[in-house]
């Protein structure tokens, strides 16, 4: 009897420990995934579009639209990657300001603006360089607006 109680506790204890461990891993994975989306999906696409706007690369409507559509796919996934406990200071590599969780709805709304803005830029690409430039600049304002309030930039 006593043995079984000990075993039961041991199992519970292990189980509890495992749960905690999985949680911590989940949190780290969320940070990794959301940074991946920004650094590997959004940033290269924005750079491609931006270089066309800056005149570093020639304007290519199809490539610009493709890049903007890649950005367009990000916000839906992105806003789901902010579990509590992943603010800057709470976990490694996080650039998320605690302000995100002070009013999560506001954060979500601000981040989701990227969806409309990138869709407009993708459409504008088909309308020519001038239209694309205006829509692209409008989109980067959306980026800046969100970063200014919700990102704590880490030195790489």
């Amino acid at each position, binding site marked *: 009897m006593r043995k079984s109680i000990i075993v039961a506790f041991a199992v519970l204890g292990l189980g509890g420990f495992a749960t905690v461990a999985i949680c911590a891993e989940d949190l780290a994975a969320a940070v990794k995934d959301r940074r991946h989306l920004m650094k590997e999906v959004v*940033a290269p696409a*924005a750079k491609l*579009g931006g270089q066309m706007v800056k005149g570093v690369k020639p304007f290519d409507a199809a490539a610009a639209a493709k890049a903007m559509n890649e950005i367009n796919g990000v916000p839906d996934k992105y806003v789901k990657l902010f579990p509590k406990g992943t603010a*800057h*200071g709470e976990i490694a590599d996080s650039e998320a300001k605690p302000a995100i969780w002070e009013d999560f709805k506001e954060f979500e709304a601000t981040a989701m603006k990227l969806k409309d803005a990138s869709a407009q830029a993708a459409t504008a690409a088909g309308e020519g360089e001038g239209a694309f430039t205006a829509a692209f*600049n409008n989109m980067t304002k959306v980026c*800046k607006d969100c*970063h*200014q309030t919700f990102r704590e930039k880490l030195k790489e």
Partner: protein
Amino acid sequence: MKLRRALLALLALVIAGAIVFYLLTMPATVPASALPAHTPDLANGKYMFAAGGCAECHAVPLKKCDDLKTKEKEVLAGGRCLKTPFGVFHVPNISPDKETGIGTWTTIDFINAMKHGIGPGGVHLYPAFPYSSYQRMTYEDLIDLKAYLDSLPAVKSDVPPHELSFPFNIRRTLGVWQKLYVDGESFTPDPNASAELNRGAYLVMGPGHCAECHSSRNILGGIIEDAKFAGAKNPEGKGTVPNITPSDDGIGDWSEDDIAYLLETGNTPDFDVIGENMAPVQENMAKLTDEDRKAIAAYIKSLPPRPDAVPKSEQKKHEHKEDAAPSSEGAAEETPESKSEQPSAGGEEKPTAGGAEEKPTTGGAEEKPPAGGAEEPPGIED
């Protein structure tokens, strides 16, 4: 008898000390007769208002007192709080309200504040108000700026007094700091540099006050000449302000167009966007003309390349709030000194901008004087 003599000697010392302190900390101002005859140009005043970033600090913060976002830029009722190692500064009302703003200030009052850090009645102003840069502005630009500020709405507000620790809470002590770093001399163009470089230098060193955040400071809170623009800990606590000199640590791989484009749009060459404290600065830079942004970029590119003033190990550490607070002063002081031995600090001699950069600075007294740069020009206060 002996004791009496000793006491007398002590008394004499105390009195002498008090006199020296009094003289050292005397407010230095210029009389109204120093002003040139100039009809205020409101449009240029508005332009200088953007270039100087006045609203970044003096507009009303959106929600909390440390919000970087503000309400209308033209309503300068103050109320922002700056949390620094010296304590908390509460940014004052500079709207033309006569009671709680600066509605009673004359043009010369305003110019003495901007060029000498002295408010009406001889009050020493804290250099959180970056007059160590604004002093380089020309009288004409300042007269225009004053006229523009006068044209903005007067608003009453109730800003709490600063909460500073001893001895920083004694304004008079600032007189010593001002002796070291403030002389009220306007920017002097370098005759050997192009008009574009001189314009860029003026905007950067004067109204733009870029060095105030992008440079590390010594223990007295003065900018370290050898580390100017080489980055710093964020004066408000968290994070670092980047090195903007054209070095490997800085932005050496950016072109002039990249810098001008960043100032116009907020996008880095990799299409990351700037945020935080630089975002409102960039929004103001976006209001300047293309030529002025190009001039700033040209001048930044001409700075002596410097290694990071904040060591890499510490750039990671500051991620925790506590770490960045009071100890930052001492740490910031040591670093560039040890670095100044490295050859890279010798970049001073850059032919074009070197002169343009070094001439208007006053900090030379603290560190070794820059090569070829003028030693403290005779200040108006002398």
